[in-house]
């Protein structure tokens, strides 16, 4: 039972990692904490829902659309709002990104109503005796996450723009001196970060196929913070690995807490997540994994 839960935790963790990479990318390059992270996930989830509901396309196929939509949204918000706030005090950017998040939620509620939506994509199960059986849809989520993370890794290593992003992450002044168009990289990083976040939301629906609604993002913002801090706020790769760790911890602790009678395991697991957040922030703010 615990082993089955852990396997599930790993699978979920891949999506958790994917959904947090955008957050870390944006912070790593722009030093902006996107407090409106969750609502962008929600957008991705709705994309998955509508693609399935209207055209019967499973979430995995919606991936390119999700990334594209996210990048477009990212560019829009960057040029409208974020561009003026680079280097502004934290209060300003935190509040601005939060307000953007609220705007997204309200627009979603306006367009699609506050009701919960869902769908189910059944493509059979994979049996791993004696531990557990896993729905194939979750396996596809895992594969997608890993593949995308790999593509991203190669792009960062080999492509000029990817290397430029890494340069700006490390030292924006130095990068500027080397001829990198730093403002352009800011825009690109933000857009890419949002794209990854929206994508994360799409993949997330493979794990929570019911419960899609305009306000679903909030709790994931918080989880993403914990994961991002765990992986070292500045590194997308740290975030990816940290996602797996978090998935394991979350599922494992849920099972273990469930064994204690006077405790409500769902809330207690979330409490543990925040405890973890505080402990890491206190003792190792650069994160436990990867990170720089």
């Amino acid at each position: 039972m615990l082993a089955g839960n852990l396997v599930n935790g790993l699978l979920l963790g891949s999506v958790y990692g994917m959904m947090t990479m955008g957050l870390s990318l944006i912070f790593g390059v722009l030093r902006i904490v996107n407090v409106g992270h969750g609502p962008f996930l929600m957008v991705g989830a709705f994309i998955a829902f509508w693609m399935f509901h209207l055209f019967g396309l499973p979430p995995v196929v919606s991936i390119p659309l999700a990334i594209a939509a996210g990048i477009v949204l990212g560019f829009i918000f960057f040029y409208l709002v974020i561009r003026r706030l680079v280097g502004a005090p934290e209060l300003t950017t935190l509040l601005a990104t939060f307000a953007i998040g609220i705007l997204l939620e309200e627009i979603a509620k306006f367009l699609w109503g506050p009701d919960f939506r869902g769908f189910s994509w059944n493509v059979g199960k994979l049996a791993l005796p004696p531990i557990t059986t896993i729905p194939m849809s979750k396996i596809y989520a895992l594969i997608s996450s890993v593949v995308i993370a790999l593509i991203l890794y190669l792009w960062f290593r080999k492509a000029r723009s990817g290397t430029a992003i890494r340069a700006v992450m490390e030292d924006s002044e130095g990068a500027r001196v080397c001829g990198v168009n730093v403002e352009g990289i800011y825009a690109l990083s933000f857009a890419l970060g949002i794209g990854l976040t929206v994508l994360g939301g799409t993949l997330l629906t493979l794990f929570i196929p019911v419960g899609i609604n305009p306000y679903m993002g909030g709790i994931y913002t918080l989880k993403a913070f914990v994961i991002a801090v765990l992986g070292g706020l500045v590194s997308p790769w740290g975030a990816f690995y940290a996602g797996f760790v978090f998935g394991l911890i979350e599922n494992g602790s849920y099972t273990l807490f469930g064994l204690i009678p006077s405790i409500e395991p769902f809330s207690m697991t979330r409490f543990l997540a925040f405890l973890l957040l505080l402990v890491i922030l206190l003792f190792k703010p650069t994160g436990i994994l990867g990170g720089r």
Partner: protein
Amino acid sequence: MRRRLAKYYPLVPVYALYLTLFLIGLHVRGMWQSMALLAFYAALGQAFNIFLGMTGYVDFGYVAFLALGSYGMALAVSGLYKFDWLGGGIVVIGLLLALVMAGLLSIAVGGIALRLRGAYFAIATIGVNEGFRYLIEGARLWGGSEGIIISRNLREAFGTAGANYLSTFWADTLIFIIAALAALITVRYMHSKIGYALTALREDEDAAKVMGINTTKYKIIAFITSASLGGLIGASAWALKLTYVFPADVFAIIYTVEAIVIVLLGGAGTLLGPLVGGVIYAALKYWLSVTFPGLQLLILAPIIIIIIVAFPQGLIGVLKAKVKGTALEKVIV
């Protein structure tokens, strides 16, 4: 003597405004609730401003202090309502307990989080807010996710009429008093060593440290003050007035956001700012809920964004710059 009193002059417009609102509420039919709402947001803004405005740090988990204050009041009432001889003292004890609980949390949080800078601090405070809420729900503390309901307790202690009077008149009047108290404390801090230290560290923390200012000490002072006042607000505006406390409601992050907006709108770090911001925000919110029901947040969100990008110093901030060099300078603070 005149010199010493002069520093309290800025309180005059503030108190005048509070008194006006209070009297309007009292004597104009049907306006009590609206005035109470204005007072709530003004109080929230003034209390929050003591930390946000004066240090420049964002406590994204501020509402936790209001929450703990509510629990303080609720616990006092539900625990002591059987003791008739205490009478109205239950409420006083409730307020004290609220103060203590919020204060203790702020010491704990401040001790941990205030070592962190900027974004890390903000994330840590969100973590505290949510973490505490889930602790209460998870460990089934103080009623767990079902919270505490004190309406029956109040009725048994004070009779139906008495309980009603408490929850409507006294709860709201208390909020006015707390707002006035917060304003007083703000002025006292502003013109003291505390205020100068906070301004220094807000402008440039590293320079302040180099000058020998113990920044952590002053940050903690501001933090605890702001938190304690928040606790009092929660105790009266939520526990006493609504007569129930549910963790999902009292830890709702929206109140922190509203507090931030109010302080920013009015002018962070100013005295009049949060008051003006609170009144305008409350009025705007109410008007929006009547004219465009269900769309308030949709309209407010872009407004917030515009304020942040275009007017970060807030209304009073802009006004202050305009009255510099005139006689009004001493009053518009």
